[in-house]
């Protein structure tokens, strides 16, 4: 029983379908696409952003390097400075580190950054067998780990508006329309004058990077589009039901880490489904979970949590009995019904909450 590997794995797993060379290209593209965001973060937060970014990348890379050196040593190999398994060479670890660091608030203490990075790369990637084999997104895992462990220590810059992020304010009072007056949509769009995680603020730069990735085809456009679209749809339904005006869904889309998560984290080729249909359902579920956590949950932001939750169902989406590149009429019908039911549940939930 131990030796009979299910055949289907070889057919469905993304890492076997994509040639290794394209991983390097893809990872390099993601890093390039993140450069403007990084530059903006450094421009806005100065040294603290630099420290966080450098520390994250360094601690991820060092953890991985030490791990592989130890593994080689235990295997009885001689010490070589250049380790063959080390993924610095194909940008993978830099991408993970950069994405992780950009989701952090600017006042995160250094030791928290290091612990989260080391935990994320070790438990998210190394023990699963390294690049291409991980089930969970290492950046999301590291981020969630420190949110749960050190949630109180990760504060946002206090000089800006009231010291809380837009979603933080919204978490206390879900349907507070006045919040929009404090957080001008223009500011949310450009990222100037609002608090937040260092890389998640400027919507326009994030979208720019996404467009670049889409043109380089290193990227699955459906996931971010469906993800953001779902959140906008549900927020729109709530806005109509509670009469909150047209800007409420736009506000939900622009604030918090939604764009960042949708464009750079959810699209990770290793931890997202491979079929067309699977990707759409995956992104839809992500949107629903994010919106529900934002609206009803205890945490103000749900992007990383929902990415981590959906990562565990990726292999189920790829389950051979229902994987299919074609989307049949029946699937379309079921999907439509599910969307309508979700909107219904949202409205019912909202009517009970407020």
């Amino acid at each position, binding site marked *: 029983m131990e030796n009979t590997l299910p055949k289907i794995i070889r057919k469905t797993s993304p890492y076997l379908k994509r040639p290794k060379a394209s991983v390097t290209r893809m990872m390099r593209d993601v890093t390039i696409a993140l450069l403007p965001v990084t530059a903006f973060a450094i421009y806005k937060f100065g040294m603290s952003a630099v420290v966080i970014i450098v520390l994250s990348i360094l601690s991820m890379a060092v953890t991985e390097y030490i791990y592989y050196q130890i593994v080689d040593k*235990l295997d009885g190999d001689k010490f070589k400075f250049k380790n063959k398994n080390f993924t610095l060479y194909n940008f993978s670890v830099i991408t993970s580190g950069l994405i992780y660091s950009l989701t952090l608030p600017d006042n995160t203490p250094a*030791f928290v950054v290091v*612990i989260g990075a080391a935990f994320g790369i070790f*438990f998210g990637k190394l*023990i699963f067998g390294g690049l291409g084999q991980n089930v969970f997104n290492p950046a999301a895992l590291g981020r969630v*780990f420190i949110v*749960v*462990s*050190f949630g109180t220590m990760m504060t946002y810059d206090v000089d800006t508006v009231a010291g809380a992020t837009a979603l933080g304010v919204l978490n206390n009072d879900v349907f507070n329309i006045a919040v929009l007056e404090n957080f001008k949509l223009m500011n949310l769009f450009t990222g100037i004058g609002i608090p937040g995680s260092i890389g998640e603020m400027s919507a326009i730069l994030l979208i720019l990077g996404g467009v670049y990735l889409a043109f380089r085809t290193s990227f699955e456009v459906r996931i971010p589009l469906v993800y953001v679209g779902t959140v906008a749809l549900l927020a729109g339904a709530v806005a109509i039901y509670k009469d909150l005006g047209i800007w409420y869904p736009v506000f939900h889309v622009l604030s918090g880490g939604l764009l960042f998560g949708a464009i750079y984290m959810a699209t990770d080729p290793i931890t997202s489904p491979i079929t067309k249909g699977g990707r759409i359902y995956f992104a839809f579920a992500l949107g629903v979970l994010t919106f529900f956590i934002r609206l009803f949950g205890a945490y103000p932001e749900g992007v990383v949590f929902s990415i981590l939750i959906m990562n565990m169902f990726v292999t189920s989406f790829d389950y051979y009995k229902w994987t299919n590149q074609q989307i049949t009429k029946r699937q379309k019908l079921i999907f439509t019904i599910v969307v309508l039911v979700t909107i219904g549940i949202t409205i019912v939930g909202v009517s009970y909450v407020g």
Partner: protein
Amino acid sequence: MSKKENFLKGFLKENPIFVFLLGMCPALAVTATFETSLGMGLLVVFVLTSSNIVVSAVKKWIPHDVRTPAYIVIIATFVTVVGMVTEAYALDLYLALGVFIPLIVVNCLILGRAEAFASKNTVVDSAIDGIGMGLGFTFALVVIGILREFLATGGIMYGVYLPFFVDAPITIFSLDMIINLFTNGFVISDYGLKVFSLPPGAFIALGIILAVFQFKKARKDRKAAIAKMERIAELKRVALEKKKQAALKLAKAGGK
């Protein structure tokens, strides 16, 4: 098997949790602190020992066909007794363990020992087996509990749930004591990994411990495999040499 071996086997060689993976539910659920782990372990020692004694004493009268139902009834009786005693003498522990006290009934360890050992051995041996296995279980729980409590708070407390021997809760060990030799007013528990007191930490902590066990076993197997390979290679070499020499001799003989 001598009595001493019988007693000691449960600690490492046949440890119920680390080796046999029995009773994982309590090993994850009640090990948030050192004390709850110890309390749960002691309850299991009691139930396991008494059920082992009773099972081995009445094994003659239990028909072979209905032994599982009979064992379950015996175990459930002792679990009820233990639950009531805990509620009377250590209410905090009773509340902290909650549903996991009645769940001792369905702990695979106890039924497994009753079937595998007590139903075949004498009363004394079964009692020793019960105590040994129970203490092995306790040992495993305490190891997990200490690891989790230490990672979550940086210290080990005693006296919150178990009111015996102490009047008020005391700190058995804490990193504060060491750190405060150098600085003042440092509270390590502010910097603890709170995840380890929550459900995810239970899974991860037990996973780490089991990985250590498996790592050691894998090393041992590997070494044995390498030694075997070397021995085979050596034998092959010797055989080959012999063949060569024989061939050489033959050639020499042929040459002449």
